[in-house]
Structure formats: C-alpha cells, structure tokens
C-alpha cells in the first residue's frame, strides 16, 4: 500500500510543529524520517496514526484520502506503529497484548485466547521470532518486547509500518537484528517509515531519506550521503561530530568503589559487586543498555539508594552511607538522568533552580533569609556563561527547551568546587547544539582535574567522551576497556559477552 502525506500542518497554539510536510512512501521501501529531537517527527506520526488531527493537509492511502478520528481508524486502514515507548500492558501476556482492541470472542463473550496464541506463533514463525505467547510482557527483555509490538501491528494486517525511534532501547546486536527484520518486511511488500536521529542506521537501511528541521521538510538525501552531509542538513549548519579533546592526564585515584552492591525494594541485586576507580582528570564512561544497573549505581554514589553494601571513598574519605546533602557537600556534582523528574523543579524559576543544592546555608541563605540580590546576580552570570536561552532568570524552567533545562542543571552542578562529577545521560533528548555545549563543558571539567563519570546508553557519546570505558551488564561491570576499543567489541560486551583478549585488560585495570 502506498502512503502519501500532503501538506500536513499541525499547530499547538503559537508553535507550528508540522509545517506543510509532504512525503510519499511506496510499498516495499524503507523511508527514513531524519530529524533532531523536537523537529516534529513524532507529531507527524501521531497525525498519521490518528492520535492528533491535522490542521491542514491530507493523508492518502493508495490515492484515497483518509480521515482518521483515532488510532482505531488508522489501524483499520492498515497502518501499524511500533512506538518508541512500547504500548504494551506490562502485566498482560504476549497473546493478550496482541489481541487487545481486536479481540475474537467465543461463547458467552469468552476471549478466544487459543486463537490469539496461534496467531502469535504463526507470525513469529514467519519472521523467525522466538516469542512465547504466554510469557508476561514485563518479564521479557526489551528486544523481545519490541518484537511483540511488531507482531501486534502485523496481526492487524498492517501494510504501512511506522517505527518510531526503535533503536533507542536496543543493544547494537539487537539493532542489527531489527534492521534485518525491517529489510525482511520491506521485501514482503510493507511500506516502512523509519523515524530516527541516528545517522548510521539511516544509511544502513533506508531506501530514501527525508530530513525535517523545525517542523519543515528541509531536504531529501540518498543513503549514500555522508554522515557530515546528513548532520548538517538535520541541524542546519555544519556540526562537529566528534568531541575535540586533548589526551587525558590522569592524576591519583580520587573515587574508589569497592564491592558495591545495591539491593532494590523487592530484593533484587541491581548492582552486583562493582569495583572501579576514577582518577583525577579522567572521564570514565559507563556504557550499557538502559536498565543494567547504571541508574542505581549513580544513585548509590549520591546516597539516593536505600540498601547499599560495599565501600565508596572519595579522596581517601569514605562517603558510604552518607546523606545526599553530605555527599553533595563533600564535593560531588550530579546530573541526574531524568532532569524533569530529579534535576529540576519545573514550576521554579531558573534562579531558584540554580540554588536548590545550597538551600541550607550560604552563599544564598543567611539566617533563614534568602539573599535574593546575590542570587539574581549569580543566576544572571550563569545564564550568560552557560548560554541558557530564556526570557530571564525569573522564567520557570518548565517552559525551557530540553537543552536549556539541561544547561541549568549543568550550571548548578558545576558552580561548586567539585571533587567528583557524575553525569547520567547528560545529552538525552536535547538538540545537537546543546549536545556540543554539554560535551565541551564535561571535557573542560575533566581538564580542570576533576574525576568525571559519564553514564550513557548512546555508544557514540561513550566513544566520544571516554578516556576509559566500563561496560555494565545485569548489574555487574563486565569489563573496563580503553577508549579506543572497537565498537563491535563494546556492542558484544553490552550484550554480556567479553572477547577473551579484552578480559585481560580488565584485570590490568583492576591492578593499576
């Protein structure tokens, strides 16, 4: 089935998220929609899927204009979507998720579960998936959950499949497998829309590429275009894809973590016997697929986890079991992975957010009174230094873009005298310009002689920033390797396999 979007326009108040976007996807082709976070890709797909109504423009399937009042209509017309955040009910089985909204029932309204199981098995077999229809979805690895999403779409006879940032949660190996599945679907005649901001994947799999920026189509490219060409099209100017940094000059070990174990509320060991050290003036990047204990590890360093065993010492002093406030006071800067949840108070102004870590005493508090004049001056300086684009320091941070919010977090955390800097997912969901800025500041912090830990699920970011790379898998650090380790080795390690020649270097690091 051929999909055609003609002049789709979608406005949210004053913001035009999609501005006359036109796009054609033929059966048997993979059309990549490339654009930065916030470029309007997801809005466009939500219009296509009936979740939003377009203000202008038409959706055509095989040259027939469609009117979708909701996702049900879009699905009935043959459009399937694999969502970035899986739209699966975690406590349901695979079969229940696949049949939901499209249930066959037997006598007395009884659900036809055997039929749904058979359908899951049939589609799994056709594409070589290994999916148990009776498995509970939340107990499956993310890669398999994604296949359940694909099965769900295919079980409704989708002829047009939309993949919305499908690789964000996958290991490199899982990504390769997904690419293979997409090719297989393409060869079976499915029209595929592939939304992403990852250049490598686009060039690997796309038949055609449409680039959108700030809600507009800014160009088409062929898969043979270079990374630099695609990136400059996407961002609107030439971009430095690599981070400029001098070789590290590491000093003495500053942070020493030994035998760290973190146990969560239901008794699972989420960080298992982790030992490592970070030296002054180096960046240790912690790589790994989301959910392998990185979050809990950083939270344990900060004193945010309840059940922690093992020792953490900073510059020879133990910070194990200290309260968060004491940890911060001993010179730890922390960029949490979810800035809107843990990093900022959305309703507070930029100035107020900048003093959140120092709300007890000086320099902004004196005998319980806020020193608003000092704070305003400080905030004004930081906004200028960190290039926070806003209407002033009294703007609530909730109204800023993701990139500017992250700069506020960074400005706050870097404005104390640091002995350790921990940045978790520092560039998640922010624009390329802000990514460059954040990366530069992280490297600058390292160059001042501060030990830095960067946690990232983006292999590109890990490789760009790291002086050494620790890979986490199922709660353990399965290896600490040099920054020049090939990507495919890192990919294997993220999936839990350590090639023999790299096991050696881990031990050497331990001895060092």
């Amino acid at each position, binding site marked *: 089935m051929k999909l055609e979007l003609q002049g789709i326009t979608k406005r949210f108040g004053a913001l035009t*998220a999609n501005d006359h976007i036109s796009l054609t996807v033929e059966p048997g082709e993979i059309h990549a929609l490339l654009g930065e976070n916030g470029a309007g890709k997801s809005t466009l797909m939500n219009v296509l899927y009936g979740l939003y109504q377009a203000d202008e423009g038409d959706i055509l399937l095989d040259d027939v204009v469609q009117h979708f009042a909701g996702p049900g209509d879009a699905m009935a017309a043959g459009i399937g979507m694999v969502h970035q955040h899986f739209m699966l009910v975690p406590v349901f089985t695979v079969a229940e998720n696949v049949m939901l909204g499209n*249930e066959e029932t037997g006598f007395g309204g009884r659900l036809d579960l055997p039929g749904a199981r058979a359908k899951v098995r049939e589609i799994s077999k056709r594409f070589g998936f290994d999916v148990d229809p009776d498995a509970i979805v939340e107990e499956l690895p993310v890669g398999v959950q994604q296949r359940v999403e694909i099965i769900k779409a295919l079980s409704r006879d989708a002829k047009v499949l939309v993949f919305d940032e499908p690789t964000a949660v996958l290991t490199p190996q899982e990504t390769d497998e997904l690419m293979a599945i997409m090719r297989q679907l393409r060869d079976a005649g499915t029209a595929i829309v592939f939304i992403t901001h990852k250049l490598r994947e686009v060039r690997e799999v796309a038949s055609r590429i449409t680039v959108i920026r700030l809600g507009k189509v800014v160009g088409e490219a062929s898969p043979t275009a270079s990374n630099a060409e695609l990136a400059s099209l996407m961002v609107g100017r030439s971009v430095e894809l690599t981070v400029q940094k001098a070789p590290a000059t590491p000093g003495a070990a500053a942070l020493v973590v030994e035998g760290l174990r973190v146990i969560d509320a239901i008794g699972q060991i989420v960080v298992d016997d982790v030992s490592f050290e970070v030296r002054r003036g180096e960046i240790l990047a912690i790589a790994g697929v989301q959910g392998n204990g990185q979050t809990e590890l950083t939270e344990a360093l900060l004193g945010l986890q309840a059940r922690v065993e093992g020792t953490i010492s900073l510059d020879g002093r133990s910070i194990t079991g200290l309260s968060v406030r004491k940890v911060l006071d001993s010179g730890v800067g922390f960029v949490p992975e979810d800035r809107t949840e843990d990093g900022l108070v959305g309703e507070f102004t930029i100035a107020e957010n900048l003093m959140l870590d120092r709300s007890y005493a000086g320099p902004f508090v004196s005998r319980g009174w806020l020193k608003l004049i000092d704070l305003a001056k400080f905030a004004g300086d930081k906004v200028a230094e960190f290039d926070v684009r806003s209407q002033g320091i009294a703007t609530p941070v909730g109204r800023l873009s993701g990139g500017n919010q992250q700069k506020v977090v960074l400005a706050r955390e870097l404005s104390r005298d640091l002995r350790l800097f921990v940045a978790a997912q520092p560039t998640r969901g922010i624009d390329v310009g802000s990514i460059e800025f954040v990366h530069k500041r992280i490297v600058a912090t390292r160059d001042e002689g501060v030990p830095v830990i960067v946690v990232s699920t983006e292999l590109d970011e890990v490789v760009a920033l790291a002086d050494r790379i620790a890979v986490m898998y*199922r709660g353990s650090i399965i290896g600490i390797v040099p920054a020049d380790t090939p990507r495919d080795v890192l990919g294997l390690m993220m999936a839990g396999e350590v090639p023999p020649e790299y096991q050696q270097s881990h031990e050497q690091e331990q001895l060092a």
Partner: protein
Amino acid sequence: MSVLTPDVAVPAAPTPGLTITRSRSWKAPIALAAFTVLAILLFFVAGRSGHSTFRLSTSTDFVKLPNAVLPTHGTGVVVTIVLALITLFAAYRTLGYKKTPIWLIALFGVLFLVGFLSWAGANNSILVPGLLIGSLSLSTPLIFGALGGVISERVGVVNVAIEGQLLGGAFVSAVVASITGSLWIGLVSAMIAGALVSMVLAVFSIRYLVDQVIVGVVLNVLVTGLTSFLYSEVLTNSPGLNKGLLFSPFDIPVLSRIPLIGPLLFQQNVVVYLMYVAIAAVWFGLFKTRWGLRLRAVGEHPQAADTVGIRVNATRFWNVSLAGAIAGLGGAFFTLGDLGEFQKTMTAGAGYIALAAVIFGRWDPIRATLAALLFGFASNLQNVLSVVGSPVPSEFMLMLPYVVTILAVAGLVGQSRGPAASGKPYIKS
C-alpha cells in the same frame, strides 16, 4: 514532543536474569508470637473453668448435628500449645528464609478463635449457625461494595465513594420501594442511585481531573448529609415513604438441606443470591472476556489501550458507573434485604471497610470477597460475644472489626501492586 501525558510510572517488576537476595521477614512469626502470648494470658492466667457448648444446628434444620461440648480449660490449654508450635514452626521457616504460608496463618486464626470462643463462652452456649449467618449478612453489603471497588480501581479510578454509593442505594431503594410498593423497582432504583453517585465521581475525576480521593470523600460526606437531612425532615414525618418492606428468604431446593452450609448459604433472600451471581460474573468478566481485558488494559496502561483504539475515558466512565450500580445493590441489602427500613447513616463506614477489602483482596474479586467475609465475621463476632456475656469489655469488642481490618491490610498484604494507572487521570493533549 511527547503526545500522551502523564507517563505511567513503571511499577517494580522482577527483571529477568537478576539475582534475588534472600531476606528474612520476621513480621509473621512476631505477630503469631504476640497472639500466642495473648492466648497464654487469657486461657492460662485468666483461665476459666467449666464447659463451653457449641450448637451446630438449629431446631428447624433438615439435618440436625449434635452439640459440641468442650471443657473450657482443657481446650484453652490444647489450643495454646498448638499455637505455640505453629509460632515456632513459622520462626524456623523464617530462619531458613522461607515464608510462612497463608494457610498456616489461617489455621492459626481459626484455632485462636476456637480457643477464644470457648474461653468467652464458658458455661454458656454459642450458636455456630447464628454466628455464621450473621456474618454473611454483615458481609453482603461489604462484598457488593468491594466488587464495585475492584471494577472501579481496575479501570483506573480510585473509588473512595463506595460508602456514598451504599448509603445512596439504601436510601433510594427504601423510598422507591415504599412509594411503588414493589421491592424489585426498589432494587433497580438502588442500582441507579449508586450509579449516579459514581457518575459524579467519574465526571469530576475523568473530565475535570479533580483528585479522585478528594471527590470520593466529598461525595461520601454529601450523601451522608443529604440522606440524613431527608430522613429527619421527610421520612420521619411521612412513614409511608419508609414502610419497612423486606425481601423474604426462600430455600434453594436440595442445597439448603446440606448441614451447616445449607442454612447458611441457601436459605437467603434474593439480594444474597444476586451477590453470588455478581461475584461469579465479575470474576468471569474481568479475566475471561473482552470487556475485562479492555477494562484492565485501561487501568494498567491507558496509552497502550488508546493506541489500539480503545476509548479510555469512555471505558472508565461507564465502568465506574457500573461499579456504582453494584455497590448500590449492596446499599439495597441494608434496607430491602436486612432491616426493611432506612435509618440515618445506617451503613456506618461499611464503604470504607469494603475499600479495605479491595486492597486486602489485591484487586481480585474472589479474594476481595473472602476479605469482606473476614471483616463481616469480625463484626458479627463482636455481636455474638456481647450476647454470650464475654468478660471482655464491650467497648473493646466494638473495635474488633476495625482492628482486624488494620491488621489485615497493614500486616498481611505487604507490598502489593494495584493497577498501575489507578488514580491517575488520562490526559490526551
């Protein structure tokens, strides 16, 4: 840009492949030990002599069972020893990182109860069928309320307004039945009244996004105030509106002749029989039909339901209304099924106990029913003991159902996962 807000928090679920640490939970052995100490104090230290008689059937029963006569002191001694053994066994299991099985706790409870009843009823007789039938009758509105609560919470709306739905159902059914002279029309009107209370909850929480707990509490206060006002101002002056009509019980052939169980379960009135049907229907519906699958999906992950074409807010609205209708039936039991006439605040907090039964029953209709039966039994135990003339002060016994509720919900449930999106409005931008 994210389409659908707010994100549903992902509940803690075991991640595949992670080791689970073993930890000892001493909650159960400590609680059992406390009760064993209580048993020693009551049955030994404050032990009473004589014989306690348990009457197992009444004169009208088809099959008559003989009375069980137990020596009071001897029973107390035996029971206390067994309780101590169970406690030791539980402690031993905990040392070995094992949980105390729920059946053992249930056995402990029953034994303690036997010991306590024989102690309290020394040189007296306790009518066991009366104790049980009274429990069922006190449990019936709780069960209807709990079923309403289960449906409402499963679809994603916290139903604190069960109390209001029960009271509304009780008032309206009494008045409508008195005016029309038809019990059946009264019953239907109770369902409508419950559904109307629910619809207010639904509109405010789903359409206007008001905090569901606050709307629920306010509704309870409103219905209590309204029915009390109408009762004092209208019903007391015109007795024709509150005639005291009552469904009469009828026997189910054959089943009603089973000893003990027959008179308990199958010599009831139509509201109780409707309750049996409702329990089965809600269970089957929730877990075996399209209606239930969609309902649960909406309560667990509304965005996922939305993306497969299920209308989330409409599903919520109609199922919350249905939940109110079922709770309304429970209200009708107070008037048409039990007492006949409406009395001021006659539900006396049953709605809140039903809510506790929902949580104790882990959002499952069968377990919630069992929980409601336990709470009903605790209430009736207090009635029976005050008749027998137990040495425990009556004020203390009045606390019993609530103490049992708190112990059950706080102590035994532990960490349980309700529907993930319960209480969270679904906002589509």
